[in-house]
């Protein structure tokens, strides 16, 4: 650990504020292209809302397809923020420092993106407004005598996602206060006024720093249970259903959570490699960080694989004809069995084989491929849970059918990837994606121990 050379505050400020205080030429082009893709996706969504769901591949019995898969996928990506920020902060891992802000911001944007999916999936999104337009007034649908199921996981879901989104946003904003102060001191004009407002008069005295550190630990401890609950509740959207045979499994909650961590942390690793390349942050995002992330991912991936085996094995365990029908569809019928093999291969065997090799962990090209492979696999995982189960839905065996996504669905899903990338790039122009004070704190605490002839890197620790 601590392979980098010592850095001074001025250098840290200059290099990490580069994205904000300067405009690289590629930035506007890239954001414009991504913006166009997003607008095309929004157009496709508008077209779908205007024409109806017939323009998608959704039909009885597969009522949930690409959109819900994408929803679960982006909720999964959002789990990286808390995993890296909260868990590594609580365990005092030094290598978390460059990763936390990017992970937290990715969390916020992926959650926002995820929430657009069920919104357009309602087909008539304005009805959602009526449904949530509540206290102190009665929701519209209630008033018309339609009483929704208030005990359903589809009610637990928004409560969890909104809690997580609010908590993540507040966490990021509070942690940004010292960096807003740096930006306040480095800018002029309107930027200076806005950053000054956001910094709230931050001076950097001992009390303020103490509260910041405590805030980090306390909020981490509070957000961790929320993070576990969010994807568990999303999994219960499926797990509570008894008519979709492969869904009614008790292990769904931890299975989804660990899968979310797997995909999220891989996504963050990829984002960090991109940031290092694009912004020239070799001093901050070093090979040791990617190495540590890869080693963490081996543990997470293996945990995920264990839960996958539990889910599949107990699917067969019951020896019920209706569940066997779904599993038969997943494992024996083409192209689903091919997708299953690809899914397991790219989600576990390929990346873990890569991550077990030290030289591969420290090769950023190979690591990028491994991380992308994980996310392709995890997207497939959600798809292969949702669609085959619905395609063999009981007791409507006369309705058994398959699912083929339409161009509209492909465009909208593609648009979500463009949206998150675009938002990340835009926010990089406004806030530093690596927390300045965290890096500076790492430099302050860095020291050495001499053992015989060797000098071992060390850190000062308060607890």
């Amino acid at each position, binding site marked *: 650990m601590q392979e980098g050379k010592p850095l001074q505050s001025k250098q840290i400020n200059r290099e990490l504020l580069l994205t904000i205080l300067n405009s690289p030429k590629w930035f506007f082009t890239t954001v414009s292209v991504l913006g166009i893709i997003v607008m095309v996706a929004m157009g496709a969504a508008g077209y779908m809302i205007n024409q109806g769901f017939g323009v998608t591949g959704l039909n009885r019995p597969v009522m949930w397809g690409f959109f819900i898969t994408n929803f679960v996928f982006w909720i999964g990506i959002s789990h990286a923020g808390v995993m890296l920020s909260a868990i590594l902060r609580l365990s005092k891992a030094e290598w978390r420092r460059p990763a936390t802000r990017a992970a937290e911001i990715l969390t916020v944007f992926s959650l926002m993106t995820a929430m657009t999916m069920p919104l357009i999936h309602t087909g008539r999104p304005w009805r959602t407004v009526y449904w949530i337009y509540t206290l102190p007034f009665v929701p519209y649908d209630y008033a018309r005598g339609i009483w929704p199921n208030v005990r359903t996981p589809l009610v637990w879901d928004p409560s969890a996602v909104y809690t997580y989104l609010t908590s993540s946003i507040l966490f990021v904003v509070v942690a940004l206060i010292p960096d807003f102060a740096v930006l306040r001191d480095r800018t002029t004009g309107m930027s200076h006024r806005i950053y000054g407002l956001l910094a709230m008069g931050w001076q950097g005295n001992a009390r303020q720093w103490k*509260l910041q550190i405590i805030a980090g630990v*306390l909020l981490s401890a509070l957000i961790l249970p929320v993070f576990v609950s969010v994807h568990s509740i999303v999994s219960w959207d499926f797990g509570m259903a008894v008519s979709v045979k492969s869904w009614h499994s008790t292990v769904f909650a931890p299975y989804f959570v660990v899968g979310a961590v797997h995909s999220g942390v891989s996504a963050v690793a990829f984002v960090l490699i991109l940031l290092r390349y694009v912004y020239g942050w070799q001093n901050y995002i070093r090979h040791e960080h990617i190495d540590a992330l890869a080693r963490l991912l081996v543990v997470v991936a293996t945990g995920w694989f264990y839960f996958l085996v539990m889910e599949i094995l107990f699917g067969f365990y019951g020896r019920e004809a209706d569940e066997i029908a779904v599993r038969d569809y997943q494992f024996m019928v083409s192209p689903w069995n091919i997708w299953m093999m690809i899914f397991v291969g790219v989600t576990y065997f390929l990346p873990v084989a890569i991550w077990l090799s030290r030289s591969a962990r420290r090769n950023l090209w190979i690591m990028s491929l491994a991380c992308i492979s994980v996310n392709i696999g995890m997207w497939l995982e959600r798809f292969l849970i949702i669609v085959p189960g619905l395609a063999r839905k009981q007791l409507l065996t006369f309705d058994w059918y398959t699912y083929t996504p339409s161009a509209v669905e492909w465009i909208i899903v593609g648009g979500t990837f463009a949206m998150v990338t675009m938002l990340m790039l835009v926010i990089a122009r406004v806030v530093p994606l690596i927390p300045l004070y965290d890096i500076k704190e790492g430099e302050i605490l860095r020291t050495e121990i001499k053992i015989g002839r060797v000098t071992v890197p060390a850190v000062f620790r308060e607890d």
Partner: protein
Amino acid sequence: MAKKPILGLFETADNAADAGDALKSAGVAPTDFDFLTDAPYPEGAFGEREENHRLYIFPFVGALIGLTVGIMLTSMTQMAYPLVQGGKPILSMPPMAVVTYESTMLTAIVFTIIGIIFESRLPAFKEGLYDTRITEGYIGVLVNVDEEQLTSTQTLLTQAGAIDVVRKDGGSGA
């Protein structure tokens, strides 16, 4: 007499700590001077006073409020619309538990944020004396002393190694 602020800027933490020692020896109360840094130093690194806070009350209060709201919202909604759904009882505890848990955590976190901002004595837009070089890595020693002591304090800070000393009246020097 009202105290006036004076800010010394130091290049190294050791010099700033020396300044702190000198101020203490000169009889300046620990509550009258602060160390301003651009990164968190371990508590006590400058020999500064211990800061007490009551942040932990905020999440507790928030959690209690959230718990109450969650229970009320879920139970009253179910009782207001008493429809048996899927054979589940009208007042179904497990779904209540989920939503109540989320509201408890949400309110605990929101109150914690309020607590952090409050205990940090923010917002403080009418900032005291400050220098933008602090975020460049310089360490500021902000002292509040009586007006007649400003000059002696300036001398003390300069002797401790300050590269610059800033006063509210716009004067500066080292």
